[in-house]
């Protein structure tokens, strides 16, 4: 870490402003946590740990819980059918009741994916530290927050102390300059970044996304990008706040008001990397040249332009990359040289903490309006939160999806990881707006191609991986 008077990067400023104890003799720094988001999967053992040690929650007023990973997305008025899922959700309800933590349960209008709920309530804001027992906590970095996924032991640590012992990170600037072409979106930017730096390329770093193409993005787009920072191995990703951030926050239930708002804005405007500050690493991406991006393999770094083809592993220099690509193609049942656009899918999933916000649904609906789902395909649309669902219905988007032939569901993580009944069938191929194409992620032997919402929509219309421009003429 640099001295305070030196020019600092955005991440270093946040570190400085949350430092409780500077670690000595190799000990980590103790960092204060402003907001702790909790869900049912990674918290029961943490609450148990508190109970065993006879400890209380330090700041229940900085802690909030929701149910998302296990929750069904249809027939939500019925008891959760799967007994282990029901038990885990019940454990969260009992734990939050016992410890006095606010919870948004299934059926509540603020229930939904934890990374959609925080921002929509206005709890996620610039200049704060956010943690959650979920790797996609990096999403909240879109506001200029330092947001990290943590393990269950750390969840317990934050519940008990509202702090975390952390080793300072290295910093990496991801400069994305230029203007995106029509049909190219935030998802394509981040898939291109991960393909470039690799799934381990961000390891040990906090990424700061910068440049004109990032500044031009909405908050939803910035969240999509920061969300997948973890897929490049980074501990966090962030975007400096600006007028777009402030406008998104203004008037949300938990956004500061009056004098507090003015004070906050004054501070938030200082939250950018100083002129002359240096990053440990810099990466450059030309937005002008980006095509829609899609994955062909079984990790998010195995991606290619939608205009390209399935690569040939034999051309890879690194033996472990070659082996990994060969295994991926076998699992994905793809032949080298196949044009990506010739790949036929069985199902389309529009949802997940990456792409389930109102803007994502609007972008897809615009393409689907008046069209019909390709023959033999299924499609599921899962809004990120109940509030997104309500908003979408007020705009008539649900009708567009249903008329098109898609299923319109209730909020949750759903088929992104298939902890609830929503799964991609065995040996079925999915175009999915989620974040991980890992082996078995969306169900046993399910084959996932990660795509943007508009590519998902164009694919649903044509039946093969498609870009919006394929729908013209």
């Amino acid at each position, binding site marked *: 870490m640099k001295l305070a008077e030196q020019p600092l990067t955005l991440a270093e400023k946040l570190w400085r402003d949350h430092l*409780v*104890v500077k*670690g000595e003799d*190799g000990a980590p720094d*103790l960092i*204060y946590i402003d907001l702790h988001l909790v869900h049912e*999967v990674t918290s029961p*053992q943490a609450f148990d740990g508190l109970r065993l*040690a006879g400890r209380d929650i*330090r700041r*229940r*007023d*900085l*802690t909030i819980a929701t149910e998302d*990973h296990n929750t069904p997305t249809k027939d939500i008025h019925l008891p959760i059918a*799967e007994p*282990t899922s029901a*038990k*885990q959700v019940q*454990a969260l309800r009992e734990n939050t009741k016992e410890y006095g933590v*606010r919870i948004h349960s299934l059926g509540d209008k603020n229930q939904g994916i934890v990374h959609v709920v925080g921002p929509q*309530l206005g*709890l996620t804001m610039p200049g*704060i530290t956010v943690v959650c*027992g*979920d*790797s996609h906590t990096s999403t909240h970095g879109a506001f200029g927050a330092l947001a990290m*996924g*943590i*393990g*269950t*032991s*750390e969840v317990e*640590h934050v519940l*008990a*102390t*509202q702090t975390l*012992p952390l*080793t300072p990170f290295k910093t990496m600037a991801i400069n994305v300059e230029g203007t995106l072409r029509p049909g190219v979106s935030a998802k394509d930017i981040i898939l291109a970044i991960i393909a470039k730096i690799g*799934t*381990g390329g961000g*390891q040990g770093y906090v990424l700061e996304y910068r440049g004109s193409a990032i500044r031009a993005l909405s908050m939803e787009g910035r969240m999509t990008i920061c969300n997948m920072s973890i*897929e490049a*191995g980074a501990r966090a990703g962030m975007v400096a706040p600006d007028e777009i951030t402030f406008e998104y926050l203004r008037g949300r*239930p*938990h956004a*500061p008001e009056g004098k*507090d*708002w003015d*004070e*906050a804005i004054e501070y938030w405007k200082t939250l950018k990397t100083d002129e002359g500050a240096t990053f440990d690493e810099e990466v450059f991406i030309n937005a002008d040249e980006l095509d829609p991006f899609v994955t062909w393999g079984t*990790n998010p770094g195995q991606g290619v332009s939608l205009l390209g083809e399935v690569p040939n592993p034999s051309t890879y220099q690194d033996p472990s990359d070659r*082996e990994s690509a060969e295994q991926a193609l076998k699992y994905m049942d793809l032949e080298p040289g196949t044009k990506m656009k010739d790949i036929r899918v069985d199902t389309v999933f529009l949802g997940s903490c990456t792409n389930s916000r109102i803007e994502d649904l609007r972008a897809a609906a615009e393409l689907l309006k008046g069209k019909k789902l390709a023959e033999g395909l299924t499609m599921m649309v899962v809004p990120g939160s109940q509030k997104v669902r309500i908003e979408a219905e007020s705009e008539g988007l649900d009708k567009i999806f249903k008329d098109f032939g898609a299923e319109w569901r209730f909020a949750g993580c759903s088929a992104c990881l*298939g902890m609830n009944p929503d799964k991609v069938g065995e040996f079925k191929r999915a175009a999915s707006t989620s974040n*991980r194409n*890992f*082996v*078995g*992620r969306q169900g*046993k032997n399910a084959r996932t191609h990660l795509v943007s919402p508009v590519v998902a929509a164009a694919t649903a219309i044509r039946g093969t991986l498609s870009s919006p421009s394929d729908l013209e003429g």
Partner: protein
Amino acid sequence: MEKISNFTGIGVPFRYSNVDTDQIIPAIYLKRISKTGYEDGLFSTLRQDPDFVLNQDAYQNPQVLVAGSDFGTGSSREHAVWALRDFGFKAVFSPKFADIFRSNCGKQGVIAGVIANSDTVKLWEAMEANPGIELEVDLPSQTVRCGELEINFEIDEYTKWRLSEGLDDIGITLQNEDKIAEFESRRAAWRPKTLPVKGD
């Protein structure tokens, strides 16, 4: 947490790179609310293959996993470490670990030691030449020995100290309770609070 110094146990040549935590333990095993008993989920998909290394007679009751690069990527699930621990593993070596996974290991008394790429290959070859051979892991000297072969591993000093002392992180942090309280007294009014407000 138990104090760790050195131990000897069967090593497994795990010739896979980019092993994400979904591979280590699929989401289906994450629905439990207990903190132990995850051994059945460990590499459950790979274990369906009878030839998989952990299904071979020589590698029963193993304690040391030597894996390829980028081990433990993806999901933050600590269940991945619980599964390894419950299966009996006390140490994992790889040229590169995902940050959250490595941190989770440190909380559960599992050594996540970083070794050079070339040393990984040497260890694999040495173990495969003598399947079921016991490796000696020595935390104080940061070495792992396989027969004549001795390899150094990296682990950060703080985690090493905590593992060797068997210390609980929360207890260490609470020694600074006064500093946390002082920090909180300066917390700006605009910073978020989760208590219900109008319009929620």
